[in-house]
């Protein structure tokens, strides 16, 4: 008998939902057969069988969210296996009652501790104590000690990205209860995997990264004109049109190449170094049906605007149909978030860790602008850079925006 457990499909994945079972109990399974589809924090992926046999038991039904490492099914390969502790199938992560009283030092009412006890997480006493004190969930942590034991070093490695603080900490308003309005009703909507990751990562980013914001505007008249000319020509040729955002991705990529220290990551408080990235991979914040996703245009500094346009269009389309792969969302070094299409003038964005900065872009619209002491009607674009002050200073951010402004106002350099 072979235990099949919830796999880790991405380095940020902590739990996954069985989207559908392709095999049913009693079905014959060959190596490479698709057992089920698993929805992770980033994507839905097919899970192939590594062993042959007969599917003996489905422990976690479709639709249920469980921590990675949780037993999801058993495959009968004709051999007896030594009895293993039956795992945490009984402890689906979402099942913990949400309105539980706040401080929960005892394992009985806290979801992570239940998982810890029942799924046989092997962790050193030190790690268990730290998990207890900080209310950490160990189920997603990969142990590197003997026999897979989670040791202190794993915890250090995993913090802050892999360890969640459950949303029921003492200070969280959910714990107080009266938020639920009885008369008109409040609806409990379960978090999707994507929503959960957004909540955790951006919460962490806002809490731990000292953000600062620099706002500037650029005369986008030339950019709008250029885009018009480009698209007229592309339409003649029967090729895909480019958007203002595609031009902006290219502009940011070039500005990042000019200011490589903005294309950087803070590593950790204990690190003696910061990381400056050789590649310029620009993420585009996309509102997918499930929430925010950030597909990445890799090497945007060496791609033409047209290439970027084709790629971005494809990524956005895939995102809206939920088809982005983990690769397509990995490796970003900078993100652009554009809310211009919603009529937003300007806004600030939260940095997408481990990146060092994000550009929040408002709409390009006509304004009365003073040019050569005359009032003219021009297209103006406003944008705000959020930067991680641990690695980027105000002057650097300002210089970056200066370069970006120059590129927008002289857009020919974007297509050279």
């Amino acid at each position, binding site marked *: 008998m072979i235990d099949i457990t919830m796999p880790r499909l991405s380095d940020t994945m902590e739990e996954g939902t069985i989207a559908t079972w392709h095999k049913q109990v009693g079905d014959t399974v060959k190596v490479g057969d698709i057992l089920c589809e698993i929805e992770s924090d980033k994507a839905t992926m097919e899970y192939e069988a590594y062993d042959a046999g007969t599917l003996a038991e489905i422990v976690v039904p479709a639709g249920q969210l469980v921590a990675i490492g949780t037993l999801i099914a058993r495959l009968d390969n004709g051999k007896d296996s030594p009895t293993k502790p039956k795992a945490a199938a009984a402890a689906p992560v979402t099942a913990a009652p949400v309105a539980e009283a706040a401080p929960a030092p005892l394992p009985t009412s806290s979801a992570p501790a239940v998982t810890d006890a029942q799924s046989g997480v092997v962790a050193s006493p030190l790690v268990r104590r730290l998990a207890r004190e900080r209310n950490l969930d160990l189920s997603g942590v990969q142990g590197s000690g003997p026999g897979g034991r989670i*040791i202190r070093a794993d915890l250090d490695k995993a913090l802050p990205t892999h360890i969640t603080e459950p949303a029921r900490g003492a200070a969280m308003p959910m714990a107080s209860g009266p938020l639920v309005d009885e008369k008109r009703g409040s609806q409990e909507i379960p978090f999707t995997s994507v929503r959960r990751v957004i909540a955790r990562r951006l919460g962490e980013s806002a809490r731990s990264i000292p953000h600062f914001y620099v706002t500037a505007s650029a005369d986008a008249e030339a950019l709008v004109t250029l885009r018009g000319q480009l698209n007229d020509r592309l339409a003649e040729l029967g090729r895909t049109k480019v958007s203002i955002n595609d031009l902006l991705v290219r502009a940011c990529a070039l500005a990042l190449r000019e200011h490589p220290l903005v294309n950087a990551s803070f590593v950790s408080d204990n690190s003696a170094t910061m990381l400056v990235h050789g590649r310029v991979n620009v993420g585009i914040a996309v509102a997918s049906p499930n929430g925010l996703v950030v597909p990445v245009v890799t090497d945007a500094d060496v791609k033409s605007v047209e290439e970027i346009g084709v790629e971005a269009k494809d990524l956005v389309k895939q995102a809206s149909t939920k088809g982005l792969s983990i690769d397509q969302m990995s490796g970003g070094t900078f993100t652009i978030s554009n809310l211009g299409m919603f009529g937003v003038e300007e806004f600030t964005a939260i940095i997408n860790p481990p990146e060092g900065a994000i550009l929040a872009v408002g709409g390009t619209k006509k304004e009365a602008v003073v040019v050569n002491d005359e009032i003219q009607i021009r297209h103006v674009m406003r944008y705000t850079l959020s930067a991680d002050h641990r690695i980027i200073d105000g002057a650097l951010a300002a210089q970056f925006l200066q370069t970006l402004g120059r590129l927008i106002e002289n857009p020919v350099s974007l297509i050279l």
Partner: protein
Amino acid sequence: MTLMSYRQAIHDTLRAEMLRDENVMLMGEEIGVFEGSYKITAGLLAEFGEKRVRDTPIAEEGFTGAAIGAAMLGLRPVVELMTINFSLIAIDQIVNHAAKIYGMFGGQAKVPMVIRTPGGGGQQLGATHSQNIELYYAFVPGLKVVAPSTPADAKALMLAAIRDDDPVLFLENLALYNTKGEVPDHDEPAVIGKAKVTREGSHLTLIGYSRMAYVAKKIADQLADTDGLDIEVIDLCSLRPLDRATIVESVKKTSCAVVVEDDWLTYGIGAEVAATISDGAFDYLDAPVRRVAMAEVPMPYAKSLETAAIPSEDDVIKAIYETLNAVGFRRSKTGPHD
């Protein structure tokens, strides 16, 4: 401070205490005319005379018992048992009399005596003469057991042992007699029951006593130089009372520990130390406590087998690295070997 050997430190302290207090007297086999099998009592018969330096018959039970009686009546006898192996002949006197008289008879008589005796294998003395059985005494309430590893500690603990009103087993070690160290000139007794952190560190706690405390310190210093390791070393100094607080405090800091001992593993001092850590620092442990001890055999006579049976420095280093690996420690990149 004066640089002297462990042997010299014990000799000088015995002499100084005999000069200070005329109730201090010595008893043992061959300690007078022959000046002791290990020459600890050299010159003392000549200086203090037969009344205070008594050569005894080869009868450990008899002269240990005689010393207990002398102590009950006000003397401060220091008995030499030629090796700890011979204490087995006197164990009834030590365990059933010296340790219990004060408690059993309502505190009417104290037993302020010292039993000096060396342990230590590795001298090809065979199975019956190569044992480290201090554990038998550390097991017994009513006794104190101290085990210095340096000349300075030998002096301070000998001062404390002679001046203590309880019977104290003073464990020496054949392999330490010729080791040298700075010894303070002042007359400051140690506090019995207090361990020493002989090297501060943060990566791992290495615990030993007697010869193994010496070995532990040496290895820690060496690994600091070669591998950039920062090992904390604890010399227990006293096996009863055991300084549990110092052990626990250290492991709370380092999260892992290796205990090294010259006796057998099973039921050994290391087991007691490991249990102490489990009691006091369980929630701080990132790896199980490791013990390095002697092979579980009567000590072989053949040199090669004897060497194999005794815990070596390599055994200790191996246990250190296995423990550090278990807590995910990577070798420092600053060491000269990298």
